[in-house]
């Protein structure tokens, strides 16, 4: 009998979907002794419908508001049964993390359940047709912001700095080895871990499907996406942005930014610089 893939090959996620790759990479590290769960989102395509699933491991389809509460329950049940070698992985989108699932997430972190939350940030509610979320970059056109979003995105990573996470990290599909290293780190911890992964979406961001990784790399290079981690009260920056002036190149590689004016572009660049400066200052501090 052929070996069961941890994530099946024949799934109906779009061509060039980063979220699919992130799931494969995460399970490559965590292995078969993992229980996963997805809220309504594109990641639920992996969980499947009817009697079919794309996961080669046990999975639960949760409601959008409370994936972290499901994870808490599973984690505690495993603890009672003494199954300490089984990992719990929550696999959600940005809508289910930044917006609708946020209170459940903050609760689960505060209670300290051992679980790994992975947030695949594709900057919109993609599974329902691409409506804006609080993670959408300012200026981006979505179903509900046809002339470009007016508000800056919520910085969930900075918000979570004040929570008792055992491990917190940002990662990107543009550096998959760094992501796998971070998942391996999270797997070692005995508490709640949060990994926020940039997950470009060719269907929603409107770029050619072969550019998924290239765009994620551009975001890292230009400082639009910062790679860092927090553990034991210390922030470590994994990669210094090479050139903030490369941000327009990142933006113009996607049609969702086709309505961007110069003023908003400047604002995006200025915001990215400030974000990095703040992070630099934070990395000098002893947190906790």
């Amino acid at each position, binding site marked *: 009998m052929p070996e069961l893939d941890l994530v099946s*090959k024949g799934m109906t996620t779009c061509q*060039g979907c980063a979220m699919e790759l992130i799931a494969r990479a995460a399970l490559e590290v965590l292995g078969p002794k993992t229980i996963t769960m997805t809220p309504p989102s594109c990641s639920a395509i992996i969980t*499947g419908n009817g*009697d079919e*699933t794309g996961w080669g491991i046990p999975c639960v389809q949760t409601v959008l508001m409370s994936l972290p509460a499901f994870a808490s329950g599973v984690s505690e049940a495993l603890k009672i049964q003494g199954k300490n070698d089984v990992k719990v992985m929550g696999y959600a989108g940005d809508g289910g993390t930044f917006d609708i699932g946020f209170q459940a997430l903050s609760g689960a972190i505060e209670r300290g359940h051992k679980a790994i939350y992975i947030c695949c940030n594709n900057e919109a509610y993609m599974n329902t047709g691409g409506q804006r979320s609080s993670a959408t970059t300012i200026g981006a056109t979505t179903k509900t912001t046809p002339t470009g979003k007016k508000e800056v995105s919520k910085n969930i990573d900075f918000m979570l700095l004040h929570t008792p996470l055992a491990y917190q990290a940002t990662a990107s599909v543009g550096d998959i080895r760094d992501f796998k290293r971070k998942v391996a780190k999270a797997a070692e911890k005995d508490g709640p871990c949060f990994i926020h992964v940039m997950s470009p979406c060719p269907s929603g961001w409107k770029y050619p499907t*072969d550019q*998924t990784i*290239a765009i994620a790399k551009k975001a890292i290079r230009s400082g639009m996406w910062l790679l860092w981690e927090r553990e034991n009260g210390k922030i470590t920056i994994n990669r210094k942005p090479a050139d903030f002036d490369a941000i327009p190149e990142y933006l113009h590689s996607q049609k969702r930014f086709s309505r961007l004016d110069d003023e908003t572009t400047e604002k995006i660049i200025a915001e990215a610089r400030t974000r990095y400066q703040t992070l630099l200052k934070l990395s000098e501090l002893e947190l906790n």
Partner: protein
Amino acid sequence: MQKLVQQRLKKLEAMPKLIGPVSVKVSDVPTGTWRYRRPVIRHGDCVKCGICAEYCPCGVIEKTEGKMVIDYTYCKGCGICTTECPKKAIDFVLESECNKEGD
């Protein structure tokens, strides 16, 4: 507390192993039919670094017998492998051309 846990565990053990609606089949959509372009590796130029396999979202590139092999049953033809290959050793051929050549 410990007593309560023991009671609950006993109850759990008495329950059937599968509760509620469960998936019993693995998704197996032949997504290769979506492809209008096919990635074809030029094995002479390939240095087997494995980067294409690392970044293929569908996990369909594998190193077998010292050679990179693509599973065309599921390859969706996104082209990520062709873009990410540092040696530019993967051609991106129109499916219609492939059919003409009869392969």
